[in-house]
């Protein structure tokens, strides 16, 4: 079991940036596509620095930068993305297919840890960073990675989970990114939250007396991405829920051990 506290968090999606909009989304989730997306201005970065940031990187910076500004410098970063910058990869593949030379800039930024590296350079943060690509439980793996860093002595760790809406050519293979989104969490050591892998399913005899049917039925697959599901439960104050990926045997249970005001729930 992994325990931790979430000191701050922030979500970002096209047309979904303000806290009030997230509140509205949490009560009745909707797909924020459509309309003219609010472009990330990133006014806190000089143009010479932000020019190489991809759309996904801009989302990451817009989401996580204000969070990072409120905390102490030099905290480790865990960056997680299942699919990464599919738009950049697709562009590079198309260039190769056409027999043209690759853009050196795009090529050197096509690695999975490019956004984490740009974050480190632009913020001048020299603490370690990790770039993960996991199946549909990348959020949980990112949190585990962060908890291990906390246990190793770091006071806080920034977790960023980001996905970019892939080019339409990928539509048959990528079904879990209905729209681009970024979530950022500042984690600290603590016991506010527990994350457990494969909770024990109660025995059938206990089953009849157990009123918590949540323990028995497989959790429904939400229509919105799992990291956004965490934001939703944070906003709604949900005490406990489960997550299992569509193809994954792993089942996770998230449990809030104290209310947002810090009072124990038990």
């Amino acid at each position: 079991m992994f325990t931790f506290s979430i000191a701050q968090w922030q979500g970002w999606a096209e047309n979904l940036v303000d806290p009030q909009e997230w509140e509205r989304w949490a009560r009745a989730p909707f797909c924020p596509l459509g309309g003219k997306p609010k472009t990330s201005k990133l006014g806190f970065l000089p143009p010479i620095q932000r020019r190489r940031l991809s759309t996904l990187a801009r989302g990451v910076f817009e989401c996580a930068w204000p969070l990072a500004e409120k905390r102490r410098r030099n905290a480790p970063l865990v960056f997680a993305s299942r699919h990464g910058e599919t738009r950049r990869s697709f562009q590079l593949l198309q260039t190769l297919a056409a027999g043209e030379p690759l853009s050196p800039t795009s090529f050197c930024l096509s690695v999975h840890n490019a956004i984490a590296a740009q974050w480190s350079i632009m913020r001048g943060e020299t603490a370690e960073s990790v770039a993960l690509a996991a199946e549909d439980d990348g959020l949980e793996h990112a949190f585990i990675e962060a908890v291990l860093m906390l246990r190793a002595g770091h006071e806080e760790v920034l977790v960023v989970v980001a996905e970019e809406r892939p080019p339409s050519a990928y539509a048959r293979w990528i079904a879990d990114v209905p729209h681009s989104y970024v979530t950022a969490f500042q984690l600290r050591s603590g016991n506010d939250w527990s994350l457990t892998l494969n909770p024990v399913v109660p025995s059938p005899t206990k089953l009849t007396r157990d009123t918590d049917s949540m323990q028995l039925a497989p959790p429904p697959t939400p229509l919105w991405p799992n990291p956004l599901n965490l934001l939703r439960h944070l906003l709604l104050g949900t005490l406990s829920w489960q997550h299992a990926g569509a193809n994954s045997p792993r089942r996770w249970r998230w449990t809030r051990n104290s209310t947002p005001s810090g009072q124990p729930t038990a």
Partner: protein
Amino acid sequence: MTQSLEQELKSLVIDALGLEDITPDDIENTAPLFGDGLGLDSVDALELGLALQKRYKITIDPETRNMRDHFSSIANLAAFIRNQQAA
């Protein structure tokens, strides 16, 4: 009036390197492009070299002497391209 090669190169630098908030008029012909000047770096040099090869059908031989000088300013780049095209 046709655009001068220098003016064309300024637009190419801005487009190829994604320089936001900069117009061709902001770049002086003799001002340094790299380091303390416009602030370009080694990745920009590669990107710019590729853009020049595509646009002007020139070949840039890494063994060329004084390559650093050729890329140091718009004026030097223009001279380098005229020289290559004449060769």
